[in-house]
């Protein structure tokens, strides 16, 4: 089968912006996108730059944007892409600086991984006594919810819709890595608390919108967003409830517990608290909504049987933890 490949090219030494070039190739049934790219490089244009190594979805080097989504080129079938999209377009990972063609600068990615202290630490008072942290892991913590399967390919970071507009966001890969240490029973509780006080700050766990892109594109089923949700639960359990994000969770849950459903009229107060300056910033919107009949009655009655909802909250609170 002879197919066209549309490949984004950019050479910073001569180009002012990227352009798309078309290459034609005869491909067989089992051809992967990486196979095709290597052939294009060998047979058509030796200047094509791409990063790859193991060719078997282990090293994480060849993540790129294929037909608009982040994928490992080595385990993406050309045939399947063609059937799914009617074309094969290849571009570098989004939202990371392009070095040349399909290779991106990963330094911000590695920097964020480093920032979450991806090694076991001891409690502040035990600093310099690594022996205290070195307890054997309990069997329950040995697989870390599959977070250890991460191959650092950066597909999740490229796909992250928050990272797209806020490059300071710690991002899904680094936060998943942080969750792995929160789940590690060898680390003392004080050290974990310290991690959480760092993670709850600006650009940390509360910036995620739960868009599920990282979960969808991860080639190793790490589900980074689920890890971020576990971190949020850990922060709440550790009593770190003062941030807007934490207040959103506790305030929302409390409204549902009391009334059976959400009342949007009360959410700004729950999230922003009695902070006049911050409440003042949402006031104009509230007034505009009120003029359009979009502000629900803050004293609206609870749903029928709301007492049963309170029972469910009380009973499930007695059994904390993920089911």
């Amino acid at each position, binding site marked *: 089968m002879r197919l066209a490949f549309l490949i984004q090219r950019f050479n910073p030494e001569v180009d002012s912006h990227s352009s798309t070039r078309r290459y034609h190739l005869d491909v067989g049934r089992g051809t992967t996108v990486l196979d095709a790219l290597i052939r294009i490089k060998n047979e058509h244009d030796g200047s094509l730059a791409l990063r790859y190594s193991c060719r078997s979805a282990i090293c994480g080097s060849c993540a790129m944007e294929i*037909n608009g989504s982040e994928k490992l080129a080595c385990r993406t079938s050309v045939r399947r892409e063609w059937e799914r999209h009617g074309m094969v377009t290849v571009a570098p990972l989004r939202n990371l600086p392009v070095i040349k063609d399909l290779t991106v600068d990963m330094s911000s990615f590695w920097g964020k991984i480093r920032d979450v202290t991806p090694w076991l630490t001891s409690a502040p008072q035990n600093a310099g006594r690594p022996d205290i942290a070195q307890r054997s892991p309990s069997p329950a913590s040995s697989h870390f919810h599959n977070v250890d399967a991460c191959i650092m390919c950066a597909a999740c970071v490229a796909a992250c819709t928050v990272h797209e507009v806020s490059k300071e966001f710690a991002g899904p890969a680094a936060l998943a890595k942080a969750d792995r240490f929160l789940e590690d029973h060898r680390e003392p509780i004080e050290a974990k608390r310290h991690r959480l006080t760092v993670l709850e700050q600006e650009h940390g766990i509360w*910036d995620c919108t739960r868009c599920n892109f990282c979960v969808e594109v991860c080639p190793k089923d790490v589900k980074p967003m689920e890890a971020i949700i576990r971190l949020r639960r850990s922060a709440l359990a550790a009593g770190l409830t003062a941030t807007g994000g934490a207040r*959103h969770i506790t305030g929302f849950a409390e409204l549902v517990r009391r009334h059976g*459903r959400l009342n949007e009229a009360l*959410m700004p107060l729950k999230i922003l608290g009695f902070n006049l300056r911050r409440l003042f910033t949402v006031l104009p919107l509230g007034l505009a909504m009120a003029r359009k009949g979009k502000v629900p009655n803050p004293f609206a009655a609870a749903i029928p049987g709301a007492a049963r909802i309170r029972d469910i909250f009380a009973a499930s*609170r007695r059994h904390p933890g993920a089911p």
Partner: protein
Amino acid sequence: MPKYALYPGCAAQGATPELYQSTMAIIGRLNIEVVELKAAACCGAGVVTEANPETALALNARTFAQAEQLGLDVMTICGTCQGVMGAANQRLKQEPGLLERINRLLAPEGLAYRGTVQVKHLLWIIVRDIGLHELRRHIRVPFKDFRVAPFYGCYILRPSWDVGFEDPENPSSLEKVIQAVGGDSISYAGRTKCCGFPIILEKEQIAVTMAGANMKEAKEGGADFMVTPCPLCHMSLDIYQERAGKAIGARLDLPILHLPQLIGLAMGIPTKELGLSRHLIPVDSILKRMEKQGAPVHESH
């Protein structure tokens, strides 16, 4: 006549009442019968599960049990409800022992979920259960020469193994409905991205920049307006549009329709019944053009 247990969700009964209104306006005319689940609780919106996952599952199992007693599948009209409830339903049906454990929480109310209910968004019901052919039969005022930007939002697409309706890389259900009502759908990358709503109160700048970027892209693609199957997206795109424009330094002026408003307008339903006057971004530009194209005069508001 297809019949469902309608789960309106909090937003349609709260800050986007026009979604509930327009849903009710179209379903009867499309011969869809509903029984509203008035005693159903919030789906948790992905938030309650962060406080306690068991509570969130129990709230949804309770809703499913109520629908099961009626012998009906659940109809959602909110992309977020659909994603959260669909994923909860999957887990309850598939994880060994989970249903039994969650049912213990429902027992005091005399409820038990057996795992026989399906959760379907109005969009899917129209595309799959009713059929586009049937929808076309009801169109009186087609959106001729209108360029419409579909905006799916997150939860109605991802994660695909929980949602399972269509390819999240290349969805087409909204485009099909847009075409069935006579419009041209525009293609842009932002159609499957995030509106930012879940963090809009506490991280407004990030959220409105996300919403703004998607709307700007739609506008540059020639969109006359946008349509979404999720009221939380609608809040972000409509209520916060002015702030989104400021955040990205662009003038947007992009009307945002809820899915049933798009269908209702094309069916020739009076605008009052569709709650179009409740938007912060006026939709007059759409109504005027439709009238010019020979549509029956819509009631002004």
